[in-house]
């Protein structure tokens, strides 16, 4: 299996885990990206600054990793613009309604033994797998 990349996936996971641990340990915050981003869009008084700093750091980290190894930043999007927009709307709306995404529920919530996060993670993983099956195999629309 040529696409199997266990070491880089594990190292990346460790980095993400370290980032979430540092965020909680230093600032007492949950490193959930959908929550952090949405809090900037609708600023509640003094709450926006820490979020902006974190996201600037995230962009810098991505940029830095790309500078160190240019072929690490591969972004292959195979959906049509219309489907990309639909997916974006669903991800934005769904993560707010469901109070979190892969990072907030999957990495942070599970580590707190949150029943809500366990349910959410199980649901979005399953739904995403079913969606890929339906769109790529059964219906073949993507």
């Amino acid at each position, binding site marked *: 299996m040529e696409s199997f990349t266990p070491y880089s996936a594990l190292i990346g996971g460790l980095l993400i885990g370290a980032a979430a641990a540092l965020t909680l*340990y230093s*600032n007492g915050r949950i490193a959930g990206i959908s929550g952090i981003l949405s809090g900037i869009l609708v600023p509640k008084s003094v709450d926006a600054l820490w979020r902006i700093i974190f996201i600037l750091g995230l962009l810098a980290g991505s940029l830095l990793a790309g500078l160190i190894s240019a072929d690490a930043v591969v972004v292959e999007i195979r959906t049509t613009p219309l489907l990309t927009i639909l997916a974006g709307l669903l991800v934005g709306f769904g993560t707010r309604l469901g109070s979190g995404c892969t990072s907030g529920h999957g990495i942070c919530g599970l580590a707190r033994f949150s029943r809500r996060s366990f349910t959410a993670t199980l649901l979005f993983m399953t739904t995403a797998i079913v969606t890929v099956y339906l769109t790529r195999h059964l219906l073949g629309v993507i």
Partner: protein
Amino acid sequence: MDSSPARLQWQAGAALFLAGLLFGAGLVVSGMINPGKVIGFLDITGSWDPSLILVMGGGLLVTLPAFQLALKSSRPLFESKFYLPTLQVVDRKLISGSILFGVGWGIAGFCPGPALAALVTLDGDVYLFVVAMIGGMLLHHRLFE
């Protein structure tokens, strides 16, 4: 008074920037930033690439012990308290929201963190996704908050 301070200590800001930096680098190194790779991971009946399960595995390897340890202390290093979610019950919003998110994730292969990190590629499709994602968040805000 338990409102968060208007000013961040510079150490708090530095820690947040470093955390963001590690997070962004982790998304690139792991391959999560690539929707093609993510779809390969979700495509269990196709040519399945299980790599990305190790992203969650590696993340939890750190956060499971680290969170237990951190939450034993009375407060974080640079803040007066922990800001943790207070809701405990599994409700209809959590369930339907997670399902909608899963459908969107399965269509494009992007979840919020990787989509933001991929903005640095200046790829137009990434911007299309992120603008739509922000639109979805604002729509939720208008309807429910």
